[in-house]
């Protein structure tokens, strides 16, 4: 009998080394391009010397001051943020698809993004300072997941289904609250700020955003990489995980905690950026197969590469910036449709 389930095609067995090499070199190339491309033309040599100038000040002697400042103070933190956030979405999307046994979820399924959106909107309405917006976005993102998680504990049966349902409910609750805040906001001043935040962007990134983001995301990525083989077992369901000597409830709690911290940290800096966590794991499965030992690192690299590409496109193709969330949505939907077709998912 044949099952209509996702499967992987042969190519991954033919040239695993080449596929692997491409996947892991891609973010490096795109990182370089992100520093190189922009409205102000800078040559690759200037980029290289600017990057090295903090260590060898005489290298920057013959390049324009503005080019050096642009690379070091604007493009470098922005590219780093794109890299970290993309890696975070790739990793958490893959982990959530495994623990929810569902290839159509990402780390937003428990409402973290809606909660963060509400937190940001509230802070924009009350304070308008960048750090307060980030703090509120982060805190309300965590609160939303906390509510969904403990709300689902009120029911004894089918925890996974109830948890998913609770996440969707809490997500819609916060979306309604966002709508309420938008309605209350000053249409000339606060409303555009809220709307723009919700569209997602990396425009406002500075070096001050990077340390906290890097600590949380790198910490989370390392944790997920360490347990990645266990994601295979969790994706078979609780009964089999238990019979193989695991404690699925506790393992899933750790994964949810870790992924939520990472996503909240990412979203509080970038605003709402959808689709990446959903699409990237599918691309990864197509390239390296479903074994999380290979899939999780591949998804991290692909997520980082995708985000760098998106952000570079967002700030270069039009005179003004295209909101990042809009771009990922516009490209994410056709890509997902294409990948689902290739992956032969039969539902």
């Amino acid at each position, binding site marked *: 009998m044949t*099952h209509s389930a996702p*499967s992987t095609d042969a190519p991954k067995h033919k040239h695993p080394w080449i596929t692997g090499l491409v996947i892991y070199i891609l973010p490096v190339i795109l990182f370089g391009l992100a520093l190189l491309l922009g409205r102000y033309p800078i040559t690759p040599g200037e980029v290289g010397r600017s990057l090295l100038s903090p260590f060898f000040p005489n290298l920057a002697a013959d390049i324009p001051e503005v080019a050096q400042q642009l690379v070091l103070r604007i493009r470098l933190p922005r590219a780093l943020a794109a890299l970290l956030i993309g890696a975070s979405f790739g990793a958490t999307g893959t982990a959530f698809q*495994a623990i929810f046994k569902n290839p159509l979820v990402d780390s937003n399924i428990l409402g973290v993004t809606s909660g963060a959106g509400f937190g940001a909107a509230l802070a924009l309405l009350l304070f308008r300072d960048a750090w307060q917006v980030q703090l509120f976005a982060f805190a309300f993102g965590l609160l939303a997941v906390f509510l969904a998680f403990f709300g689902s504990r009120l029911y004894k049966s089918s925890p996974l289904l109830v948890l998913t349902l609770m996440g969707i409910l809490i997500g819609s609750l916060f979306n309604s609250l966002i709508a309420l805040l938008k309605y209350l906001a000053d249409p000339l001043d606060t409303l555009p700020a809220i709307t723009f935040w919700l569209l997602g962007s990396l425009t406002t990134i500075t070096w001050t955003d990077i340390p906290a983001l890097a600590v949380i995301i790198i910490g989370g990525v390392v944790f997920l990489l360490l347990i990645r083989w266990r994601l*295979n077992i969790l*994706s078979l*369901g609780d009964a089999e995980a*238990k*019979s*193989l000597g*695991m404690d699925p409830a506790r393992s899933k709690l750790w994964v949810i905690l870790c992924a939520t911290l990472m996503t909240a940290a990412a979203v509080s800096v970038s605003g709402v950026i959808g689709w990446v966590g959903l699409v990237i794991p599918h691309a990864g499965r197509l390239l390296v197969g479903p074994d999380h030992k290979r899939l999780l690192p591949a998804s991290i690299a692909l997520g980082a590469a995708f985000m760098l590409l998106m952000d570079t496109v967002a700030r270069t193709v039009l005179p003004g910036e295209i909101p990042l969330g809009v771009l990922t949505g516009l490209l994410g939907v056709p890509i997902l449709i294409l990948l689902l077709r290739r992956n032969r998912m039969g539902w």
Partner: protein
Amino acid sequence: MRLQASHLNFSYLPGQTVLHDVSLAVGAGETLYILGRNGSGKTTLLSCLAGLLQPDGGEVLLDDKPIRDFSAAERAREVGLIPQMHTPVFGFTVREMVMMGRAPHLGWLGSPNHEDQAIADEALAQVGLFELRDRPYTEISGGEQQLVLIARGLAQKCRVLLMDEPTAHLDLSNQHRILEIVNQLSDRGLSFIIASHSPNNALSYADRVLLMTGGWVTAYGSPQETLTESLLSAVYGIRTEVITKEIDHVQTPVAVITQRPIALEPESLHEPDSFLSRVFSNGQNDPQLILVTGLSGVGKTTWVTRLIELARNTGLSVSGILSPSTFKDGRKTGIQVVDLATGDRQQLAQLRENDSAAIRTPRWAFDAAAMDWANLRLAAAETSDLLVIDELGPVEFFQGKGLLAGMARLDEGKYRVACVVVRSALLPNALQRWPNAIVVNGGVKG
């Protein structure tokens, strides 16, 4: 190695006990089959034995140590559970699936190395699937999937493997393939506990059989002791026949087949050596119970009425009660009750128009006084050649009301031949209560 359960009790919700006082044991290389109807508690029992569920009472012991004292990984190194087959969402390769069996041998942050891969390949080779190792698990056949899960148990290096319906949905050839491999593995010392819906597989492969009904152990012992016609009828609520064959001069049971209700003409009572007349002659020594069954309206009461007439014509005495329907404008509007000993009759039930009656079904409201009268007549009836009870329905089986005097007489065996009308849907309940009954198709027209 010895896995033992003593006096297990388990309930998912307070007051809804799923396992009642279940005890069993398997030693090294033994195969135990657990048989029972859907919902009889087989899967719950397996989960308790694997240590995944904690029983409310009693204990599971592995080599005389309580299994709840084992850590999850320690337990998984001893006892493996293969759940009912399901298709995972992701298309892991066969080898990746088998490799997951190494989980209890690795640390929480560990992942399998080359040694683990060699163990997984060895396990796959043992079940004969090494060639399929790089195929997606989701794309191989159901029988092969089951073998992969067995290989995973081998890679797990556990000593008891619990399997939940391993041969469900499989064709005969695949069932045979899997059970032969299970049998050979048990010859090498691996123990199996298999929840199954196939008494025939149990007959062929089990060392011991546990029969379960509603969470209770109905029987526990060798296949020859447990897979008998009356015990299987009691467990499954159907008539079965155990076919035996002479092997080494011993009559050995080889197959269990199910029996359909017998098509029987009441008129055959007149033929001296017919099945029906033999029932009546056997009834002189041993009570014989005939269940007349069929869908509503097939003519069960008609069949019984013909039998009563023929019995009286042959000089047999008849007692008990009959409930003919009364019709109005071609529609069944009422049920009467007739005492066969005296011919007295009363109105027993009417189509429900109000909710005042003490005993009622979705359609009928019963007259409590008439019901009491019918019960009195049934209790007082002399032991006759033919006791008729028409009919026993959901009121008697589920509500504990209705013709209880009739139920009591059947339970006590106070009859020679009893002819009882039971609708098809309730036949399993009747057979579980009276496993030796003869089942007759009441829809046979003369």
